[in-house]
């Protein structure tokens, strides 16, 4: 029984299905990445809208734009939206799309788990955001200190939305972090040793471990809050033998590593774009990687710097001051290494490069104010004032968001096959840069002038009037910048997708395949010989490998179990807010999903 030699054609781009059902059941990392990126950006605009209302209220003393109740919901939701629904998901968009390509894999380790992460994120985000419609958004700030969050002082469902929303989002982040950790450790192409990994991949690995280890204490804190509110416990209630500071310790044990989760990916992105547009390798790769690892470890030892004013004694203050100042050192090293990457280069100032260079400057400003806060005596004047608001926005807007925009302009051709217009891009950049600095630099002055944070109004005559108005105008400039970007996006999507494989002449593996990549990512898994594979191959005359005829590329089939299981999870979370019967309904949905998922054929 002779059979003819079977040649199975490699899947072509037309094999890539379209239509809503194909998106709902997708397990392809590129599509999931796109979903994360778009959803994240939409929530970024939502968070921006919340911020605009805040700035409108604070533009003048004794403002009357919104009342205290709405203001207090807005500042809490603004932070929650930006942290959990915008910055983290936009980062996840890049992790999803780029990590497998960068390590020479065809997908992540667990494609269906990947889809599950996205759908739970979407449902959790909708749950949390819907709070505004159903009784009110969380109005105790994003770190929700007890006992203000107890049932006594926060009657109503605002804080229940907080607990259940964040628990749901935490499941999503945990699943994604586990997936990326296994992917990066276990699915690298031949020759892709750990010390050849792109810095962006290293940073993703580090934050994956940060999330995996930091989310559990948060889960415990949220559970204790939930039980205190509804199941008669007194973990955080001093009237029952509990301690409000227990919440703070558990929350910040999560919260501090979380801020590194927010910034390290952006640091990874600029570590990719700065070398490409300087046309030379990254300076001090090892130092940057080890600094990232150091930050990952040290980040666990600094949490109580958020609690300097809670009555910590001199010993505790000194210890945490020491660790916090120390963590500035690896951060500083990275900045210098990035600057040295520019040195001696032939810098091409694309929009992506503008954002990357701006990151260096604006993140440094945020780092500097951070080091000031690190000193407990100074912090007695800066804690809970606009100094902190200035600091956090410089590191997050001037750091994380700048990095994300650098990545967007850089990877847009790879993801869509089109280019974002450079002229509009530069306009976006300058408006954003100017607007950001106009809005947040004055907040250093406001903090120095003694303006506390989280106040819905303030009196005139305290020296706060001018800079508040200035900051509000700055926020309008940011809005215009984002409108330019959105216009640029839609306009670019209307152009012909004819970007080449490697338009920026970059060294990474993601540029070794088409723009956008075919469904199977690589026709042939590349062999890696250097940290900058494509530059090495170019300089040493290695041609890309030819696909072997007869190779069958196995791609995981689509599945509807992830979205179904996410729906079950949502039901679990919604039940306590409405009727526990809904939770009961969620359980069989989840059990059915797990069963189907486990027995589903994957080839």
């Amino acid at each position: 029984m002779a059979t003819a030699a079977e040649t199975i054609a490699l899947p072509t781009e037309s094999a890539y299905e379209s239509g809503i059902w194909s998106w709902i059941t997708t397990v392809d990392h590129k599509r999931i990445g796109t979903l994360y990126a778009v959803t994240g950006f939409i929530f970024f605009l939502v968070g921006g809208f919340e911020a605009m209302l805040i700035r409108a209220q604070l533009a003048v003393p004794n403002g009357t734009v919104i009342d205290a109740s709405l203001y207090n919901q807005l500042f809490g939701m603004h932070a929650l939206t930006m942290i959990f629904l915008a910055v983290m998901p936009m980062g996840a968009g890049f992790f999803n799309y780029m990590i497998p390509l960068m390590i020479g894999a065809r997908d992540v380790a667990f494609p269906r788990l990947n889809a599950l992460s996205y759908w739970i994120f979407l449902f959790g985000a909708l749950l949390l955001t819907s709070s505004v419609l159903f009784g009110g958004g969380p109005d105790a700030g994003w770190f929700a200190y007890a006992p203000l969050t107890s049932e006594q002082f926060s009657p109503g469902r605002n804080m229940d939305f907080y607990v259940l929303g964040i628990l749901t989002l935490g499941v999503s982040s945990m699943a994604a972090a586990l997936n990326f950790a296994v992917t990066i450790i276990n699915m690298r192409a031949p020759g892709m040793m750990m010390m050849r990994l792109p810095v962006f991949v290293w940073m993703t690995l580090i934050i994956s471990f940060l999330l995996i280890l930091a989310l559990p204490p948060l889960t415990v804190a949220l559970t204790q809050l939930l039980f205190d509110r509804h199941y008669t416990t007194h973990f955080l209630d001093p009237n029952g033998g509990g301690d409000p500071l227990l919440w703070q310790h558990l929350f910040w044990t999560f919260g501090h590593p979380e801020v590194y989760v927010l910034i390290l990916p952006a640091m990874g992105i600029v570590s990719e774009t700065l070398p490409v547009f300087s046309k030379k390798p990254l300076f001090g790769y090892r130092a940057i990687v080890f600094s990232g690892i150091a930050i990952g470890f040290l980040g666990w030892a600094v949490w109580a710097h958020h609690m300097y004013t809670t009555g910590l004694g001199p010993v505790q203050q000194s210890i945490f001051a020491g660790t916090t100042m120390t963590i500035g050192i690896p951060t500083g090293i990275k900045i210098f290494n990035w600057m040295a990457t520019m040195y001696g280069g032939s810098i091409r100032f694309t929009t992506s490069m503008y954002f990357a260079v701006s990151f260096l400057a604006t993140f440094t400003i945020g780092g500097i104010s951070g080091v000031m806060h690190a000193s407990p005596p100074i912090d007695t004047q800066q804690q809970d004032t606009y100094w902190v608001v200035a600091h956090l926005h410089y590191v997050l807007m001037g750091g994380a968001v700048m990095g994300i925009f650098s990545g967007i302009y850089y990877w847009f051709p790879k993801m869509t096959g089109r280019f974002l217009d450079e002229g509009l891009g530069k306009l976006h950049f300058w408006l954003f840069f100017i607007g950001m600095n106009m809005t947040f630099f004055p907040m250093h002055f406001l903090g120095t002038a003694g303006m506390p944070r989280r106040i819905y109004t303030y009196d005139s005559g305290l020296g706060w009037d001018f800079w508040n108005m200035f900051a509000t105008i700055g926020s309008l400039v940011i809005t215009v910048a984002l409108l330019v970007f959105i216009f640029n996006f839609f306009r670019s999507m209307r152009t012909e997708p004819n970007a080449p494989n490697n338009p920026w002449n970059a060294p990474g593996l993601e540029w070794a395949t088409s723009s956008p990549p075919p469904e199977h990512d690589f026709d042939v898994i590349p062999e890696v010989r250097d940290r900058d594979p494509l530059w090495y191959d170019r300089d040493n005359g290695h041609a890309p490998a030819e696909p072997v005829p007869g190779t069958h590329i196995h791609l995981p089939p689509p599945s509807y179990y992830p979205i179904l299981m996410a729906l079950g999870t949502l039901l679990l979370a919604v039940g306590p807010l409405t009727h526990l019967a809904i939770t009961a309904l969620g359980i069989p949905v989840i059990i059915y999903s797990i069963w189907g998922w486990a027995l589903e054929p994957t080839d």
Partner: protein
Amino acid sequence: MAAAAQIEHHASSTGTDNRKLLMWIFLGSECLFFGSLLATYLIFKGEPTTATNDHGLLMIPANLLDIPLTSQSTFVLLMSSLTMVLAVYGAQTNRLKMMKLWLLATIVLGLIFIGYQVFEFTTFGNEGLNLSTNQFGASFFLLTGFHGVHVGIGVLYLGSLLLASFRRTGLGPEAGVHVELAGLYWHFVDIVWIVLFTVIYLIPA
């Protein structure tokens, strides 16, 4: 002549199966989870309480915990780890009858452990200790309750494997991996219990 269809294997850079790596890292996060619950228990351990039941019995561990009884359930759980090892061995050496037998044994022992926990919780409840009684009640029930839930999920996990093993295709060619993964989880839950038993029951306030 059949051409050799070359199927690409997923590269495993460390030589360890992806799923096993996932389980190990996940168990790392579980350490932090139980660690935080345990830390909470320890923070409140030994705090003076005035809570008494209707008979004036002070609601403290010394008056409530039944170490001989809980030693029995601890023994049961430890034995279940032994049966789990045997189940894994059976799965890995294709002795499917052995695998099914010892999976069942593990499930039964797990259920017995849960039975002991239910008995203990009910007894404490009858003696006047509940979530709202004092910090011991709250942190004890949360800590051991979450552990019990983990055992329960483990029982469901093993039960699913056992059920699936009765299909025509059984657990498939990777039965060894599937049961080993469950084994990792089960042993972890057992180790957590050993820590809990030591800290809550054996170490006096």
